[in-house]
């Protein structure tokens, strides 16, 4: 039960929890924000899996593009309360 394993276990539990919250959130904007949190946690996960390339790609795409795409789509659908 080394420190590394504790870190991984905590990270993993948070990932599953944020993914579950993202799918089951009552309001859509909370779901999107939770998904952005999930993306950032994935970047940490790739760092733990000694895959820095994927960490770079996940951070660049997750934080930089997918989050903005989803929020932009949500803004465009703002007329209807979802």
């Amino acid at each position, binding site marked *: 039960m080394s420190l590394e394993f504790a870190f991984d276990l*905590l990270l993993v539990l948070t990932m599953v929890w944020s993914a579950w919250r993202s799918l089951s959130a009552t309001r859509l904007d909370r779901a999107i924000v939770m998904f952005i949190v999930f993306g950032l946690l994935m970047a*940490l996960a790739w760092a733990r899996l000694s895959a820095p390339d994927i960490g770079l790609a996940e951070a660049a795409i997750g934080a930089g593009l997918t989050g903005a795409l989803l929020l932009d789509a949500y803004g465009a659908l703002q007329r209807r309360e979802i």
Partner: protein
Amino acid sequence: MTGFELPVALFLLCNLIVALLAAARGPTVADRMLTALLFGSTGTGVLVLLAYGGAGQMLVDVALLLALLAAIGGIAFARRAWQRGRDD
């Protein structure tokens, strides 16, 4: 490589989780977005600690990128998904 990196990284991660739990009850969605931004900055800290904790210098690049791009999520949220004066 002082051996303290991993415990501090673990502490920061617990810090994040507490922030996440607090935000789960947060009144408006803006609080959740603040958590996402916190993940960006604290995440950078965790990555740097992991880098010096043994995973190698390559993670510093990931931390650099995360720090650079974390703000975009917040800006996109403010510009697109947040209507002033709408209380939810």
